[in-house]
């Protein structure tokens, strides 16, 4: 392993992978880019093989959540920083791209105005300054990523510099999210208040509900998830990742060795926020709505349970956890709505008590027992 550290980046990237990883990668690519899109587009509705709109949207949603879970795992599983505010970055990314989607509705809104409907409703005469240029997708995308990154960097700088950590840090991130949610609930903030953004018509000039657009967004999300997992994998195996993990385990010793934990934590934290923002930007065109309840503290803490269920400190764990919990939620909230909170609550308790390493950890333990 030591030799891996000294090798430059490119050869390290190309270093041989275990066969299971190649197989997993191939299966993922086949399903996400081949099977599901083909079945959605080419089979007739009602046929046995047809993949419905609902399934494609749910799949896209799950992959967005998985990106967020990977992002949280980077800071929590590897950096020991539990954020209860990641939904804030997710929602900010969504709002950023949502601004572009709102602008591209054009005059097809209810009031047939150049302004988004909610502004007409508030009797605003022109766009607020921060909406300028958002009719360009590139600028909106830049905003969607840069604003959360800036917020994370400033907040992280203050928090990490004074060595705020552990539960202190967690609760303060929750407070931050809560305050932001209150801010976005206000109509005067200029982001649609309670209702947020919805009724989108098109994205990049394509009708937003058309099956082909849906599939494009789905595949873009799948690619983003793949990139996040591989990028994070590369990162945590690099020297950077090693130092980060060392800080998680014994910050004082790392400092004694001459490293400055601030830089490492801040970099991981900001990167994590950007990943969340990207997921948010992909999420909004697929589900067609973004509102302030996305940044509620409860949502943030649910992200943590995705990671915990899957297994912290593994990269595939968060993906699995996000998928399992989201599927369970999707099923339970329609079938037994009154039991969903009981289930979620017990999941929080039981996973932390009995599955500290998540299902991936459990699987590995069983696997080792089987082979030994």
């Amino acid at each position, binding site marked *: 392993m030591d030799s891996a550290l000294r090798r430059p980046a490119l050869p390290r990237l190309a270093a041989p992978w275990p066969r299971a990883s190649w197989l997993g990668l191939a299966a993922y690519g086949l399903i996400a880019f081949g099977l599901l899109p083909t079945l959605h587009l080419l089979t007739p509705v009602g046929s046995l093989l047809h993949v419905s709109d609902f399934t494609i949207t749910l799949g896209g949603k799950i992959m967005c959540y998985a990106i967020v879970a990977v992002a949280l795992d980077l800071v929590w599983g590897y950096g020991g920083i539990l954020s209860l505010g990641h939904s804030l970055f997710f929602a900010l990314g969504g709002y950023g791209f949502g601004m572009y989607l709102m602008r591209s509705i054009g005059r097809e809104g209810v009031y047939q105005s150049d302004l988004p409907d909610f502004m007409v409703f508030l009797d605003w005469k022109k766009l607020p300054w921060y909406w300028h240029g958002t009719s360009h997708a590139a600028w909106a995308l830049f905003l969607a990523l840069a604003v959360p990154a800036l917020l994370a960097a400033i907040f992280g700088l203050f928090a990490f510099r004074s060595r705020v950590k552990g539960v202190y840090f967690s609760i303060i991130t929750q407070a931050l999210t809560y305050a932001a949610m209150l801010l976005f609930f206000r109509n005067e903030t200029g982001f649609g208040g309670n209702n947020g953004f919805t009724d989108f018509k098109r994205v990049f000039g394509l009708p937003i509900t058309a099956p082909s657009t849906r599939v494009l967004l789905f595949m873009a999300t799948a690619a983003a998830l793949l990139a996040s997992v591989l990028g994070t994998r590369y990162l945590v195996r690099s020297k950077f990742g090693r130092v980060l993990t060392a800080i998680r385990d014994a910050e004082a010793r790392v400092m004694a060795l001459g490293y400055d934990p601030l830089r490492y934590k801040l970099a991981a934290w900001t990167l994590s926020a950007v990943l969340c923002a990207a997921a948010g930007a992909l999420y909004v065109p697929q589900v067609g709505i973004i509102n302030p309840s996305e940044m509620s503290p409860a949502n943030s803490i649910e992200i943590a349970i995705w990671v915990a269920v899957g297994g912290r400190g593994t990269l595939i764990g968060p993906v699995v956890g996000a998928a399992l919990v989201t599927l369970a939620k999707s099923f339970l909230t329609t079938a037994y709505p009154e039991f969903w909170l009981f289930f979620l609550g017990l999941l929080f*308790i039981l996973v932390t008590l009995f599955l500290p390493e998540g299902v991936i950890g459990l699987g590995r333990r069983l696997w080792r027992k089987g082979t030994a």
Partner: protein
Amino acid sequence: MRPSRPLLLALLALPASAALAVEPGTLAKLASDDSDAKIAAIRQLAASADPGAVRVLQALSEGALAVAGGKVVVVEGDRVLDAATLAEIRPPPPDRDTVIANNRMRRELGGVLAALRLLDPDRKVRLAAAQEVTRALSPVSAPLVERALTTEKDPEIRSILETAQAESTLKNPDPAARRSAVKALGASSSPRVRALLARLLDEHAEPDAGVRREAKAAVDAIDARLAWGELVGRIFSGLSLGSILLLAALGLAITYGVMGVINMAHGELLMVGAYSAVVMQALFRRYFPHAFDFYVVAAIPVAFGAAALVGVVMERTVIRFLYRRPLETLLATWGLSLVLIQAARAVFGPQNADVANPSFMSGSVTPIPNLVLPLNRIAIIGFSLGVLAVVWGLLNRTRLGLFVRAVTQNRAMASCVGVSTGKVDTAAFALGAGIAGLGGLALSQIANVGPDMGQGYIVDSFMVVVLGGVGQLAGAVGAALGLGVVSKFLEGWTGAVIAKIAVLVFVIVFIQKRPQGLFAMRGRSIEA
């Protein structure tokens, strides 16, 4: 249109069943087809202020006034009364034409009936009527208000009516009359009057410069008087918020100090305490209705016990096993809070429960006109100070308190000298949970009681713990009251949302300077 005063007083003294003291033609006009004539008749009846006239007008507004056999009659169920004498007509006339009131008449009637209620013997009815009438003083109700003022003794109602009267004079075309009205209003201390006068400062609203000058002086005078009341009011509502925060944060500070874990279900312990109040209220209403007011007193031990019990169960079944894993405790206790919320929803229903203040806690004291101090908030401030005193005594004067402090400072060392840390953990958790239950009981007296009422409190209480420093009672008190007052003042200037954000930013900046809270404990650990 205005009858002379002695006549009026005589009229008011008439018994209810006597004949109406209006011209006989009035009633006939009421039944005519001409709306203008009808309205004139309504005004005339109103001006008479006769209790019988009230009855006739009431009947008209309810569609119970009719014409039968050339007479105007009041229909009351099966009985038919002659409107002029209010004597029953027997047998009831067979054919009746109901007198129709159109919308214009209804508007007129509404104002008139409200104004007539100003003469009601019941103080509550008069107060409500005064508030209703003064919202929009019409030419009809104005004389009635003037008349009511001649007999009204209650200072609260008087001041409302006097203000209303001066307000209506402000519309007088004569500048001199307006000026004297402005002068009279300047003696008031009501924020409403101030707003009214402030409107006169505008050239378009008030053409006369002399009146504007007078209004400016009056507004300044009122402002000076209001400023004090406002300041004291802000501090009071800040202290009231702070005392709730204190009750919520005390328990959290103890458990966080002893075990180093944040109990995310702490807010739900507040909820348990609040629902204890709901349950006790229902029990008292059912079994001891004569002693209903004491349900609050009886709820104190119940709220403490119920929350402490839930806390002990939480500690024994979940938190104990997560010792030294504070971040996971955060998640597990969040799970507990979800389960508790859903359980409350299943047992008590998702809607908010009604909690009535006991009579000795409802109402308010008004030391200055614009300073209203509700009794329930005063009681809560007193209650939390009492709880604080008990907790202080418990922590500083008992053996258990000594152990709790020892474990807070150094768990390993305390264990070495023979403190059973496990038992101390449970006891501290029960104590912290019980205090939260008391906080919930206090909350139930001023806020809505619902399954998710506790959700908003965890962050605020934690802010108090952060500011105050761990294991420091004095710090928690200072931080809770300080945060309460500061956020109420900020709310006044910037609105609630910005105030919340500002407090958060303040706490983050504060941690930069003093990572260990207001009152730092001295220690040698690097990982504080």
